[in-house]
């Protein structure tokens, strides 16, 4: 094995700066996409459990479509295809004047994709509350809105915190796909350093260590959240 080790390359300019930029973009994409994923995902997930058939059908269709097409292809559809399909003026604006097109596209694509996964967790959470409490709420004269507002959502949101942790981690990992449309996030930067310096080992190690740190940080934060949101006597007793 012939290989010139040079760990110092990671701390030289411009490479150190590239890594820091990469981390910033990774966080910027993942966090913004998470906002979309949570808000759309909760709406769609709740929608799937509603008694209204058309709404439930639409939300199911959303989940099936977004889950069964690879994220990479969704990214390309938003980036290359969507501007051609909207009315001409809008398409022109997207192609010419929209600021940060790669970033916005990545956030929208990743957010709406993750929303379908969040929706599944929300639905599973609501369904796991069980029909007993729902029926009890109806028997007390609660409307559908009240049942969700006071019974189903408060319980199910606390139940789904652990699976949401893994979705939150996944969104950081999936943000690496943005490199395919030219956004220089962490993975892209490490590959660029590898190409410029021929020190692939060091560059990829740096990226790997940073991703592991992100995962550890997110796990610690979510453990705290889990401790505060756990329903006593609900999770421990199987």
């Amino acid at each position, binding site marked *: 094995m012939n290989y010139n080790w040079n760990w110092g390359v990671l701390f030289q300019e411009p490479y150190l700066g590239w890594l820091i930029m990469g981390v910033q973009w990774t966080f910027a994409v993942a966090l913004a996409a998470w906002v979309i994923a949570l808000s759309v995902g909760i709406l769609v997930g709740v929608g799937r459990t509603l008694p209204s058939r058309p709404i439930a059908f639409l939300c199911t269709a959303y989940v099936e479509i977004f889950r069964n097409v690879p994220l990479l292809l969704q990214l390309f559809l938003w980036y*290359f295809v969507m501007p051609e399909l909207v009315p001409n003026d809008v398409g022109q604006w997207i192609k010419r004047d929209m600021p940060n097109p790669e970033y916005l596209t990545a956030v929208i694509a990743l957010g709406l994709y993750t929303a379908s996964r969040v929706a599944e967790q929300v639905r599973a959470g609501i369904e796991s509350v069980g029909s007993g409490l729902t029926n009890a709420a109806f028997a007390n004269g609660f409307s559908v809105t009240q049942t969700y507002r006071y019974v189903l959502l408060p319980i199910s949101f606390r139940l789904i915190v652990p699976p949401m942790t893994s979705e939150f981690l996944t969104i950081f990992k999936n943000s690496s796909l943005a490199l395919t449309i030219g956004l220089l996030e962490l993975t892209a930067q490490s590959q660029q350093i590898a190409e410029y310096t021929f020190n692939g080992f060091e560059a990829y190690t740096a990226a790997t260590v940073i991703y592991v740190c992100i995962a550890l940080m997110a796990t610690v934060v979510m453990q705290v959240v889990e401790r505060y949101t756990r329903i006593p006597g609900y999770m421990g007793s199987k």
Partner: protein
Amino acid sequence: MFNFDFEVILNNLPFLWEGLQLSLLLTGLAVIGGIFFGTILALMRLSGILPLSLVAATYVNLIRSVPLILVIFWFYFLVPLILGRPIGSFYSALIAFTLFEAAYFSEIIRAGIQSVRQGQGQAGQATGLSYFQIQRHIVLPQAFRNMAPILVTQGIILFQDTSLVFVVSLRDFMTVSSIIARTEGRLIEMYIFAACVYFVICFAGSLFVRRLQKASIA
């Protein structure tokens, strides 16, 4: 507003079919390899021997916290370096996918093994079977039956993930669609067509999973 050109798809069907075959082949081989190594990892983790379970746990947690694209880059860089000669994109990708997915499969298999009641293994011990006989004839067959639906689901995810070989220009279905899209200047048709193909395959797969789940409950 816009005319959908089916011609470009029809003209390139043989090329697309080749790409799809490569995607399916990569998925199939990676599923087999992933389940094989995943089972070993799961058994190591549940072995109760500290060094073994520590190694397996570290590997699984490490792989699960990095993106697949980074793993693909790693192996494109490492495999030729270790072997001293290039072995072609396909084999590099296959190794990357196998070792990456093994971590995810091992978590599924671990849960599957734990779902087999302890009495089963103890009964095996009482009959005088060795550790490997117990795993081979008692625990694993039941575990795999319990986790069949989740394994297929992971297979579908793996099939979608194979589209990421795009980053190293290996000619799978995704890359081929993109090549045609660019050379023919027909981005809209090709990407929508590719999305439909992926959707049909993966949706059919998830319907199959639902049937498996019903069968396992009954």
